[in-house]
């Protein structure tokens, strides 16, 4: 039994100088076979395993990760969480996730540091304004909290924005989702891993999946760095590597893997207590609990698996940040990194069965899937357990690229999150 974390366990362990904390999860050798194998130990894969065990009683599950937990986009993202998407299908899916975020630390007995500090999206021109107003209205019809702010209200909510209208990017208005915010990315991976492990899920790291055994159109096993592992069902949740694994399973995806970068500044005193995003100028910024400004840039527009991008892209973002917040001009940046994001033509994810029986795929979250982690895992677990989609992910099928029922979220997803 995994001991519960509480004020008492904290006190007890303080007495032994925190030297005797048990491991948060086991690291077993893989068994020869499992009922379900999840490929990819990012937030979405781990959440899927957790909800398979919790909601569907399927505990004979392994999560197989090539590197370390959360070492993909989960541990590289700027952690913005919100649900103010335009279309009914997406609003419902992301709102489902946001509701789960609201109780996640309690559910997992792990502090994911979910902070509902509000997310503000800026409008810089008349077109932005109209789009923003349309989205605010659509959100409210879908029961997603969303409000429109005038420049005076923006100034009151976030005083450090430059609203003198002298700059290149005058701010004409904003939308605000007060229930949005940020969470601690690593804690999400670790919390799900620990809670899944406690229910019997095997978590296997440093074990790449290199291929699939498929017989008569049915999945039989995955071939891994630690040998062949049989499975009745397999879920692929590998973000930037989705096309690589789909190719090994013999089908194609509409996804392109692009480099997306982020950077953090040196830590400073609290100055920014909300999240500010601007789709038009490709910039988004918040302040971490450590005090660093966390800044997200745009994608490089070519296929890239190198987890790094061009400096021109970050330069453009920083120029916009300095324009919006002149007081940050002399800040020094500490670290810059990239992730590989899996972008779909309609900027919406794919949570779907595949042409191979017993093989399921969860991908295409692109630049903005962290916010969806709990909801994605929840409905994907349903899809795998029941061999049919949950009502919330039914529209996000792979065959929408044949039927034409695309869910175009470029406006709400864009490059920002």
């Amino acid at each position: 039994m995994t001991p519960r974390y509480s004020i008492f366990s904290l006190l007890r362990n303080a007495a032994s100088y925190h030297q005797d904390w048990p491991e948060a999860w086991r690291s077993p050798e893989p068994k020869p076979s499992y009922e379900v194998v999840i490929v990819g130990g990012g937030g979405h894969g781990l959440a899927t395993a957790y909800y398979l065990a919790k909601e569907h009683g399927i505990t004979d599950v392994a999560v197989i990760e090539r590197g370390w937990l959360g070492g993909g986009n989960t541990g590289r993202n700027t952690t913005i969480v919100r649900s103010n998407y335009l279309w009914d299908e997406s609003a419902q899916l992301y709102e489902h996730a946001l509701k789960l975020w609201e109780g996640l630390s309690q559910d997992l007995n792990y502090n994911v540091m979910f902070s509902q500090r509000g997310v503000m999206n800026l409008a810089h021109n008349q077109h932005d304004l109209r789009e923003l107003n349309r989205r605010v209205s659509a959100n409210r019809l879908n029961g997603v909290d969303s409000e429109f702010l005038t420049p005076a209200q923006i100034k009151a909510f976030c005083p450090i924005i430059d609203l003198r209208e002298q700059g290149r990017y005058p701010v004409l208005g904003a939308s605000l989702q007060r229930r949005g915010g940020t969470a601690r990315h690593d804690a999400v991976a670790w919390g799900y891993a620990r809670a899944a492990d406690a229910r019997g899920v095997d978590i296997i790291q440093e074990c790449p999946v290199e291929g699939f055994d498929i017989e008569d159109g049915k999945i039989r096993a995955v071939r891994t760095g630690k040998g062949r592992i049989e499975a009745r069902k397999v879920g692929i949740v590998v973000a930037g590597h989705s096309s690589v694994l789909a190719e090994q399973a013999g089908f194609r995806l509409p996804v392109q893997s692009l480099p997306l970068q982020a950077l953090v500044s040196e830590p400073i005193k609290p100055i920014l207590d909300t999240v500010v995003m601007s789709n038009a100028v490709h910039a988004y910024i918040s302040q971490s609990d450590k005090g660093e400004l966390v800044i997200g840039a745009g994608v490089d527009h070519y296929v890239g698996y190198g987890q790094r991008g061009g400096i021109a892209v970050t330069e453009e973002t920083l120029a916009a940040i300095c324009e919006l917040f002149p007081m940050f001009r002399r800040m020094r940046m500490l670290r810059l990194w990239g992730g590989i994001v899996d972008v779909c033509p309609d900027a919406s994810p794919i949570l779907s069965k595949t042409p191979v029986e017993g093989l399921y795929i969860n991908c295409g979250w692109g630049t903005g899937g962290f916010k969806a982690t709990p909801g994605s895992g929840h409905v994907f677990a349903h899809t795998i357990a029941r061999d049919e989609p949950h009502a919330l992910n039914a529209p996000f099928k792979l065959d929408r690229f044949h039927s034409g029922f695309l869910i175009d979220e470029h406006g709400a997803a864009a490059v920002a999150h």
Partner: protein
Amino acid sequence: MLLIVCPWCGPRDESEFSYGGEAHIARPKNPEKLSDEKWGDYVFMRANTKGVLLERWVHSHGCGRWFNVARDTVSYRILAVYRMGEKPPKLDKTTYV
């Protein structure tokens, strides 16, 4: 940042170019007869190779012409540049998992 050799203008900074994705996709010969599946494949499904990818670029802030590039998508090294209509050169396949 990539240094791309435009077949007409020579080596130029990546920021002068725009990306066109997978190269050598042939437009369907008989569009009226095409099934929804085939149309979907033509319009949306793309090679997204980890390794050597044959792709199109256009020198949009230069001569404005399209051309093909063979590029390793992990090291980002450009292995060959060749004109539209030309066959891709023979290249060793690097495989990454």
